[in-house]
């Protein structure tokens, strides 16, 4: 580690813990706390990656995880940021996006042809001749993309957690720390959050004075006070990755996504240093001034041996002093300004004998191998132009300190508007929502004292708003006279390669050509050129691009603006979004009895239901056996998932009369009645039976998937009607079974002797309340499967005991459970429709042959008016039953088309092999001319095979309904 600086450099590293890792299969050592990039830099490995388009060599640029130069491949994680990801023992790191080797990338040859790959090249080159894109796409896609996903990787555990605070301060630099301290008054819970490993922000690495003592003194004082304050919680290594309504802040920390609710948010997110734009400004060894300072102070890495600083502000001078202190030769400070104001920092630089070139620019960088070897500086002659005379300075480090953009992304996501003053080169953020404030350098304050006062001001405003403190409205502090932003650090070069956007390898010419191609709006320039669309999302290209577009279109930067900032702020792992999702599952009280009986379960919505009992490879036979057992013996099916609604009160009958299509006011006590539900458009949306247990009490069933909607609909309607009725959804309060088959009564009577089960005493569609196996139950004689049958509903926690009792009672009669699949076949044989399967969003009662369930003798029901109007019109389809007579024909499936010649005239909604009839039967929508029994229809079945079927009258089975009325 020949580039290591001695302590106290290296705040983040632990020199006692050596970590061994590899990069490009070569072994390296670093210290605990080192980022991959810092550990490699300590070992003089500066080349980290290759650029996306031209495969140019790239190295550390920001050392803050804000650029795409440091994207590397980790074993389980592509596109990891090498300047943010810490090293761990035996970590294997590889570079990305190269052909051959990282040092000798064959892809770099593309750079020689860059003049043939102008902006918009894709749009211009690959659309002719027609179809050519299909040829190019595989080649381009192979070249595009960076890292490689490990598809064998076992998912890791990610989760989420809510947190609640009165004030959340984003950014723990000097402004943020002061804001947190000021906000942490009695009772005010404050969260201070920062994406970096420690509090301090720029105090950790930047220099604010000639002596270099102010930063550390200020930091230590603030941190000590924060740690002593119990009202402040701190989260480091935690990224606030977006701003959503009402100060909902997603914070990513480790493998957890915190969903933080803040009453007030103060953004102290600081500013992002920008690059100068000149020829070869992307070479390894060219980096932000703050990156060099981070390398030294955070990681104890000497960023180079001989340096040049190009600057337009005081920070370049501060960095020069830092570099000298660290033993780095400072060859020159190249100041873009002719007459920079004299400060303690500029004086100190002069005193140290540093060569200062005023009014000069770095015009080009030169390389040796894959690293910076020299810079060519020239006197600035005019705006963006230089004289021809030049001076070459050999160096292996060029630090760029030409200005900043505020880290405005979160503020803009919140609706803030970023404004730019072309005269002062200063940004401001306006139109922030209530409860959100910005402070410090994100608000264009740069002096440390001003930043501290800004933090305090924002905090006072927040605590005033929350009522923790009282006082006059906070006034903004006066603006600073000097901006650290140089107005035009952009210098075009005849050979180009002055990169505006490092992510996408976009140069000055690319941006200007985009405007020349007619894309003058900054949003169009972005989409046409892809500027700002790479991993760093324009953090270092937005301002330069805006300046170039402004100049090219004769507008100001303020008029040009920047592109929209949307969440997330930084790329996040899919695991953070997907991790620990909840998929609620519902089980009836009998669930495990089904599993014990060998049921194959299926999910209907959240409910688990037994599809059939037996081995999946014998599915059809199992279903047939279950059907036959119900038809000829007795079966038991779990119907607990059916919806259950209590409708109670003096107006219960009137209410049902208005809700359902049938009449219910005169429904006798102790009887059930079919209940068909339509919406205002007359569309069938649900069905069930309404059981009248008392004058003012109906128990109404609904479909498994529809009950919640029915319940909501009932509540909505009664909110308008204001009838004296109460509606309660008791679906989960009851378990139910249907015991069905010729022997159903015989079996049930063994556990239910409190009532007379005979057909005379308890006829079809009657309801009773009685004990079954000692459990208070509701019994309903229904015929959904077309046999003698009783639905028995008991309170939920008695479900398993009921199941056990009935199975035991039916043992000598060989009672067998049957599943949903058999039930579907049984009901199909009986011609009963399933709402949602045999109906769709347009089905009205007439179409589905349910006109018999519609009362014409009542003044109103939901959908009634529409239905009566529809009944006066010609229908254009009809749901009919059909039979496939050819035993060799494939059995049609749901949604197979009914054809009239080559024209689609309908579709199949249900179709199964009927073990009772020995052939395939089904329901299908057909045109009315084909609805008469005996009509022949043609169905386009699997693999396009045409199947002939005959329309028949419904039901297929027991048309006299004798079986269910035994």
């Amino acid at each position, binding site marked *: 580690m020949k580039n290591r600086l001695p302590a106290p450099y290296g705040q983040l590293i632990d020199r006692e813990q050596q970590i061994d890792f590899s990069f490009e299969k070569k072994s390296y050592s670093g210290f605990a706390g080192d980022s991959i990039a810092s550990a490699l830099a300590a070992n003089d490995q500066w080349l980290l990656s290759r650029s996306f388009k031209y495969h140019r060599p790239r190295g550390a640029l920001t050392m803050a995880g804000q650029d795409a130069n440091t994207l590397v491949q980790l074993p389980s994680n592509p596109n990891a940021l090498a300047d943010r990801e810490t090293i761990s023992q035996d970590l294997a790191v590889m570079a990305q996006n190269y052909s051959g080797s990282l040092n000798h990338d064959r892809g770099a040859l593309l750079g020689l042809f860059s003049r043939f790959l102008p902006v918009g090249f894709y749009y211009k080159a690959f659309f002719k001749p027609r179809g050519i894109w299909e040829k190019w796409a595989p080649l381009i896609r192979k070249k595009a993309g960076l890292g490689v996903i490990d598809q064998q990787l076992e998912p890791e555990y990610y989760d989420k957690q*809510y947190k609640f605070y009165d004030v959340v301060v984003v950014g723990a630099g000097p402004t943020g720390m002061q804001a947190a301290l000021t906000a942490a008054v009695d009772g005010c819970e404050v969260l201070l959050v920062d994406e970096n490993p420690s509090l301090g922000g720029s105090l950790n690495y930047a220099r604010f004075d000639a002596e270099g003592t102010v930063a550390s003194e200020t930091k230590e004082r603030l941190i000590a006070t924060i740690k002593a304050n119990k009202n402040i919680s701190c989260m480091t290594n935690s990224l606030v990755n977006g701003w959503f309504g009402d100060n909902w802040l997603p914070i990513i920390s480790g493998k957890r996504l915190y969903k933080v609710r803040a009453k007030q948010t103060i953004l102290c997110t600081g500013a992002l240093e920008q690059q100068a734009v000149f020829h070869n400004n992307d070479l390894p060894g060219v980096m932000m001034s703050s990156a060099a300072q981070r390398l030294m102070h955070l990681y104890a890495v000497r960023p180079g041996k001989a340096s040049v600083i190009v600057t337009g502000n005081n920070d370049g001078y501060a960095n020069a002093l830092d570099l000298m202190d660290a033993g780095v030769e400072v060859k020159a400070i190249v100041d873009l300004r002719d007459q920079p104001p004299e400060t303690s920092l500029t004086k100190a630089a002069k005193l140290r004998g540093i060569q200062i070139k005023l009014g000069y620019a770095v015009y080009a960088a030169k390389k040796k191998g894959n690293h910076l070897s020299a810079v060519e500086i020239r006197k600035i002659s005019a705006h963006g132009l230089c004289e021809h005379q030049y001076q070459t300075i050999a160096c292996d480090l060029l630090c760029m300190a030409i200005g900043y953009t505020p880290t405005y992304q979160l503020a803009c996501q919140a609706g803030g508007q970023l404004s730019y003053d072309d005269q002062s080169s200063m940004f401001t953020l306006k139109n922030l929502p209530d409860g959100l404030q910005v402070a410090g350098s994100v608000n264009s304050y740069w002096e440390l004292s001003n930043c501290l006062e800004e933090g305090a001001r924002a905090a006072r405003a927040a605590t005033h708003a929350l009522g923790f403190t009282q006082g006059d409205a906070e006034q903004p502090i006066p603006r600073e006279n000097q901006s650290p932003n140089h107005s035009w650090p952009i210098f075009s070069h005849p050979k180009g390669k002055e990169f505006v956007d490092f992510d996408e390898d976009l140069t000055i010419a690319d941006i200007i050509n985009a405007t020349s191609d007619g894309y003058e709006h900054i949003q169009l320039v972005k989409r046409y050129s892809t500027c700002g669309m790479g991993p760093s999302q324009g953090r270092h290209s937005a301002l330069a691009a805006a300046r170039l577009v402004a100049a090219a279109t004769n507008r100001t930067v303020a008029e040009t603006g920047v592109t929209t900032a949307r969440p997330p702020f930084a790329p996040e792992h899919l695991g953070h979004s997907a991790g620990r999702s909840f998929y609620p*599952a519902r089980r009836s009280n009998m669930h*495990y009895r089904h599993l014990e009986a060998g049921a194959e379960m299926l999910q209907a919505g959240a409910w688990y239901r037994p599809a059939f009992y037996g081995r999946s490879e014998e599915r059809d036979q199992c279903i047939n056996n279950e059907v036959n057992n119900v038809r000829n013996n007795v079966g038991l099916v779990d119907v607990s998932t059916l919806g259950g609604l209590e409708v109670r009160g003096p107006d219960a009958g009137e209410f049902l009369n208005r809700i359902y299509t049938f009449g219910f006011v005169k429904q006798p006590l102790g009887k059930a009645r079919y209940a068909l539900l339509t919406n205002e458009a007359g569309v069938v949306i649900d069905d069930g039976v309404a059981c009248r247990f008392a004058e003012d009490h109906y128990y109404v069933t609904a479909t498994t998937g529809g009950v919640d909607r029915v319940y909501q609909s009932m509540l909505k309607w009664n909110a308008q009607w204001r009838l004296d009725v*109460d509606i309660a959804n008791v679906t989960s309060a009851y378990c139910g079974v249907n015991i069905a088959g010729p022997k159903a009564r015989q079996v049930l009577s063994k556990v239910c002797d409190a009532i007379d089960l005979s057909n005379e005493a308890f006829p079809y569609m009657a309801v009773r309340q009685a004990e079954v196996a000692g459990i208070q139950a509701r019994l309903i004689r229904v015929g959904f499967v077309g046999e003698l049958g009783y639905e028995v509903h008991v309170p939920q926690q008695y479900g398993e005991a009921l199941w056990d009792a009935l199975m035991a009672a039916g043992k000598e009669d060989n009672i067998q459970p049957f599943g949903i699949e058999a039930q579907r076949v049984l009901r199909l044989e009986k011609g009963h429709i399933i709402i949602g399967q045999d109906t769709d969003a347009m089905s009205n009662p007439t179409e589905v042959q349910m006109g018999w369930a519609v009362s014409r003798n009542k003044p109103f029901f939901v959908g009634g008016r529409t239905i009566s109007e529809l009944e006066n019109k010609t229908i254009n389809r009809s749901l009919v039953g059909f039979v496939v007579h050819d035993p060799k024909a494939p059995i049609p499936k749901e949604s197979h088309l009914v054809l009239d010649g080559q024209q689609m005239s309908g579709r199949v909604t249900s179709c199964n092999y009927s073990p009772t009839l020995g052939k395939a039967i089904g329901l299908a929508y057909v045109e009315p001319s084909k609805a008469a029994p005996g009509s022949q229809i043609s169905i386009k079945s699997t693999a396009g095979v045409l199947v002939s079927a005959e329309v028949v009258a419904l039901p297929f089975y027991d048309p006299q309904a004798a079986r269910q009325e035994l």
Partner: protein
Amino acid sequence: MTHVNSSQPAMQNQRRSPLYRRHTELKAEFESLGDASLVSRYGELAAEIESAAQLGLADLSALPRIGFKGAGAPQWAISQGIKLPESPNHSVVQDDGALVGKLSHQELLILSDLAGSSALVNSLEPVQIESLKQSEPAAQTYHLPRAHSHSCLAVTGTAAAEMFSKVCGVDLRSHKFAQGQIAQTSLAKINAVIVRHDLAETPCFYVLSDISTVEFLWDCLLDAMQEYAGVPVGVAALRSLAARG
């Protein structure tokens, strides 16, 4: 009246919590409660009390509970000698240890004490619609079968609120969610009623949710509790913590 009967398998009861298999797998010791069983404890009681004080999850689904709703429900409840909270989403403890919560101006939730011996709850349990509608004060008062529509879990301990923040968007910390307060919210994506009802000094939250989802919820909560060393606990530990006051 409850009594310990560790030999009686929960599966022999007529009324069975959907979770009884989970309890049996954890070698729970049950106590009978009418025609149901309640987990008394899973292991050594002293350790379980400490666990419950830190973070515990108990299945109280076998305990009686009942609900009433309707425009006449509050007045009828008062006529029955029930003390009502002043506003919705709050609860008050009754003289016999039962807890009565208002879920809205017209909806009441009544939970038994931990012994299942609340005279109030037990007297109301058999009340059915027929008897309610015939008495004048019971007009517009409708019974809700909460014992069967909803499971009842208890999350106990000092880490409970922190654990809840992994599955629930309501701030349940003690200084934000007062004793007796009720939250009707989403818990692991299912609807839940959360009632804060501390066991003396130990934070305790009753969680009532759709009974058909209770196995899902049980698993979700245990998963979230792992981070804080939370474990299933029996009602005996809860009673011990309640008695500490």
